[in-house]
């Protein structure tokens, strides 16, 4: 089991790169790269949380960006109302995401397949329009956050390096949790349900309960990403909940490798770097990105992780 593989090496290199990035940024004076990677790490966290339901749970949720918005708005609205403490903002962001996931999950899990995709999408769009209607909190234009979450001197989110490491620690923490969950009793039931629901019911597992709990865990994790993202941009708007953002997250997961531990992280890094790089080259960057993604999906079943796995055997 503990043999060297290409995918492990690439993963280790990437993780080392992420950890050392602030050092490079400081040494080279390149602040932009740290800002870019803070965003990448936060969205990697969101993608990892989506991978828990999509990859391990086999539930194609097309409304995952809703949690980014809910986590973000929890921070933004509390800040607007004068509650600046992160010790209140973050728990509220997580609780709000969990509650939303519980309600939406309970309703959505009555459906299967395409209907599940459509209903999760519909709920996320509802959240988008609700946020657009919040006149007190900026409505369509969004809400500027004048002061980042305050953790009473424990950590200063306005310090770029500290904030980056906070996001990275959250990402590692979430990936670690997902790793434990995937191999736990709960995780095996979840993956069993993905593989064959009828069989799992016949051996005595009530499927919906497990799927709903997974839905809530995943949503809560993504709510954390939302709270971080709002702090990163000092701004939250309905746009973070728009369905294209949910699509972006799905692409990251599929590109990196569904149902693998680090796939979504690699997917997020590659996708967002490509987006950044290509959009500097040309205004029509999507024209290049689209075919690239198609190639990976067509020839790289299992995404980048799958490709790396085959390299190893070949």
């Amino acid at each position, binding site marked *: 089991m503990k043999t060297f593989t290409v995918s492990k090496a690439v993963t280790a290199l990437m993780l080392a790169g992420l950890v050392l990035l602030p050092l490079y940024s400081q040494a080279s004076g390149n602040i932009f790269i740290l800002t870019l990677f803070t965003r990448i790490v936060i969205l990697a966290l969101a993608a990892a949380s989506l991978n828990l339901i999509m990859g391990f749970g086999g539930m194609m949720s097309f409304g995952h960006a809703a949690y980014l918005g809910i986590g973000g708005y929890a921070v933004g609205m509390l800040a607007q109302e004068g509650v600046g403490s992160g010790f209140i903002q973050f728990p509220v962001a997580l609780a709000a995401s969990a509650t939303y996931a519980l309600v939406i999950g309970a309703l959505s899990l009555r459906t299967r397949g395409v209907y599940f995709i459509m209903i999760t999408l519909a709920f996320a769009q509802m959240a988008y329009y609700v946020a657009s209607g919040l006149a007190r909190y900026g409505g369509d234009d969004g809400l500027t956050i004048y002061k980042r979450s305050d953790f009473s001197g424990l950590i200063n989110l306005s310090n770029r390096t500290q904030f980056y490491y906070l996001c990275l620690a959250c990402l590692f923490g979430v990936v670690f949790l997902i790793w*434990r*969950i995937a*191999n*736990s*009793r*709960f*995780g*095996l*039931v979840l*993956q*069993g349900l993905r*593989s*064959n629901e*009828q*069989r*799992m*019911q*016949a*051996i*005595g*597992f*009530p499927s919906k309960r*497990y799927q709903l*709990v997974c839905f809530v865990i995943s949503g809560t994790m993504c709510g954390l990403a939302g709270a971080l993202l709002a702090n990163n941009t000092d701004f939250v708007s309905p746009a973070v909940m728009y369905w294209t953002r949910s699509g972006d997250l799905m692409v990251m997961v599929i590109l990196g490798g569904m149902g693998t531990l680090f796939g979504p992280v690699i997917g997020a890094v590659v996708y967002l770097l490509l987006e950044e790089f290509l959009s500097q080259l040309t205004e029509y960057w999507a024209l290049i990105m689209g075919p690239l993604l198609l190639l990976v999906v067509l020839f790289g079943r299992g995404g980048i992780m799958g490709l790396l796995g085959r390299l190893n055997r070949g």
Partner: protein
Amino acid sequence: MAEPLLRVDKLVRRFGGIIATDNVSLDVAAGELHAIIGPNGAGKTTLISQLTGHLEPHSGSVSLAGRDITYLPAYRRCALGLARSFQITSLLLDFTAADNVALAAQAHAGTSFRFFADARKEKGLRDAAHAALDRVGLAHRADVLVSRLSHGERRQIELAVALASKPKLLLLDEPMAGLGVTESQRMVQLLQELRKEVSIVLVEHDMPAVFALADRISVLVYGRVIASGDPAAIRANEDVKRAYLGEAHVVTHHV
């Protein structure tokens, strides 16, 4: 007479105008191997599905050890000691043989809402899985992905999965389906062993196997039980010969 382990009472299930299960009543005593036979389309699988909870009857009742389970969902029946194998192999293909069986053991060993500890390192579950695999003669294939096992091996895993839940009653839906001659013989041998430990309802097309194994046989034709009795009585029954066995050679060659 003691309370039967399984009692099916006047069960009716219709699909549109077709009555797939027509007033079926049957008892299975504890320790008995009860075979259900019948020509294609007789409603055997429909009947089994109502016993396992995958299909609801329109009227009548099913009780297990005196408890009414007619409308219980499948997973609750399983907790009460009812296990099944599927006519068409239904396993977790991307799991290993051991994982398939261990999950069945896990379903009956405390809560599965445990999120942190590695379930593959739970000795109790692994031991139970290996015991069940050993029981069906597949211990040496424990760590192979089910998608890489042969059809015959998968049929045996089906059985191991059912056994791992330590059932009171085993519902076997055509366990010999698609097996070769030697594989079938091995399965019959295995069932001979198992019947000493657990009560079995066996739905099967393989007549020699049925007559070799069954304590009692119920014959289902057009959703109705036309005869029920020990193998000798069924063999002699004129209705059965006419309605189902037809050319009697299927039965007689085994005498």
